[in-house]
Every structure is written in structure tokens, then in C-alpha cells.
């Protein structure tokens, strides 16, 4: 595992807020030359710590006003293969996130829909027809925020 110093952590904090910063810009703020900053970023990418980008959009402005998290319990554990369930649920375009979890549910799903009526359609036609589906609990997302995580408080 790669050892991080304060500068690496400052890079991670800055990039996790805005990945469009150039190496030159970040370097200037941290007192590093452009090539040195570029090497830092490259190293974090090569170690797999910087694992791509996420584009955050205003979903409502694009006509997707509702995001729902579903807790799903499989009805027939052991008989239905998890792979079959995962393949089927992963293929639903409205399902953005599928997580296999341990606890009172077996899976967590993040589902986007245009409105509540559209969500009902997705739930009835696509989710409730999945192989092995059992109890489902829905919670409608109101707000979400990403936090910087345990990267110290050294800001750029």
C-alpha cells in the first residue's frame, strides 16, 4: 500500500471536489512545479487511489425528479443464484447502483425515475419481476452530500 504525505492528501481533497483542476493549477496552489504536480497525480492514478471521475448533474433539470434507495431481500436464498439476480438488476437502466450487503437486506439499489408515477412503473414492471425478489423497502432521497473523508484538514 502506498504511503501518502500531506501533499498527496491535499491533492486528493482538491481533486475529489473538482477533478477539472489542471496539474499546473494545483501545483501552484501547493508550491509545486507543473511537472512535479503531474507526477503526483499520475502516481495516485497508477496506485488506483484516484479511480476515475464522477459527473454530478442536476437530475431534476434533466427530467429525473425522483431518486429512490431500495433495500431488497431475496425471497428464496440458496435457490436463486445471486449472479442471476445481479445480472438482471444491473441491466435495468434506471438502476444506477447495486450493492451486495450484509444485514437486514441483501442488496441496496439506487433507482432514478422521472416522477413518482414513473418510479411505480419501474418498481412494478422491472424490480418486482426480478428473479428471487422478496421484501423491498423504499426510501426517497431528499439530499445527498459527499464528504472529503479521512484525508486530514490540509487544504490547498
Amino acid at each position, binding site marked *: 500500500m502506498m504511503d501518502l504525505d500531506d501533499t498527496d492528501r491535499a491533492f486528493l481533497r482538491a481533486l475529489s471536489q*473538482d477533478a477539472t483542476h489542471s496539474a499546473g493549477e494545483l501545483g501552484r496552489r501547493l508550491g509545486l512545479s507543473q511537472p512535479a504536480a503531474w507526477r503526483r497525480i499520475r502516481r495516485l492514478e497508477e496506485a488506483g487511489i484516484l479511480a476515475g471521475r464522477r459527473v454530478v448533474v442536476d437530475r431534476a*433539470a434533466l427530467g429525473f425528479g425522483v431518486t429512490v434507495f431500495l433495500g431488497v431481500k431475496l425471497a428464496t436464498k440458496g435457490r436463486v443464484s445471486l449472479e442471476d439476480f445481479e445480472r438482471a438488476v444491473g441491466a435495468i437502466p434506471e438502476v444506477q447502483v447495486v450493492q451486495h*450487503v450484509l444485514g437486514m437486506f441483501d442488496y441496496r439499489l439506487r433507482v432514478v425515475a422521472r416522477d413518482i408515477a414513473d418510479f411505480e412503473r419501474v418498481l412494478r414492471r422491472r424490480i418486482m419481476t426480478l428473479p428471487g425478489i422478496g421484501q423491498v423497502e423504499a426510501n426517497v432521497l431528499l439530499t445527498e452530500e459527499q464528504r472529503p473523508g479521512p484525508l486530514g484538514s490540509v487544504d490547498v
Partner: protein
Amino acid sequence: MQVDETDRRILRHLLADPGVATAVLADRAGVTAATCWRRLERLTTGGVIRAQEAVIDWRKLGYGVEVSLRFTLDKTHPRAFDEFLAAARDVPEVIGIETFLGRVDVRLNVIARDMAQYQDIYRARILTLPHIADIEALMLIATIKDESALPL
């Protein structure tokens, strides 16, 4: 802000492959690089694209445990949400906060290096958060799909 068919096409390809270079994105969306760049600028200043964030793989940083903690709050207290959220933001191991309409009020995404550290965080930082009525934990085994694509 008005979003037309070309914007949607660009966004569809961008959301499907967020790290993609603008020239490649333009190609996939069937527009010139200059148009693509201009449209992305407009979508960003218009607030449709809110941010482009780097994704950190916490496992690669040694955080092998990820737990989804679901809270029901004591809503008889008028400031329960505000005070709970403010306190949760002070816990460094909390990497995500979501609020809901439903049986669950708030969800915190908590990471830890191992189960021993998780237990410490849970006891010292989580159970001490204000106005908790109930907590349920879901431990992450595997992420099967994690995309921000929209069926545009």
C-alpha cells in the same frame, strides 16, 4: 436552462464514461470538438453539470470496511436533523450523508481500516451523535454496479 437533444446526447455519453476526453466525447456524440466544448461550458455555467469529481478508491488507501448506517431520528426535537447532520459532518470517516423521506431519515456511509477501528468509530463517534432513535447497519460486501448514467 433549456436542454436540447444535442445536450442530452453529449450528457448521455459523458455520464456513461465520465473520464473521457472532450475530443472523444464530441466524436461519440456526433458533434465537432468546438461545439462539444461550448455545450459543456454552457451546461456547467447553467448548473446542469454541477461538478466533476475525482473518485477515491478508499480500499486502495487501506480502508477495507464500508458500512451503510441507517438512522431514524427523534423528530420530537425540532432541530434533530440540523444538529445530527452538523455533528455527522465532523466525523472524518463519514464519506457520504443522505437524507430520506421514508422509514429511514438519514444514511451515513462510514469507512474504517478494519473491524476493530470500525468498532471504535461506532462507539466513540457514531453512538454519540445527537437525537438518534434507531440505527441499522448494512455492511458492504461488494459493489456490483456504480454508475451515474441516466436513461436520457
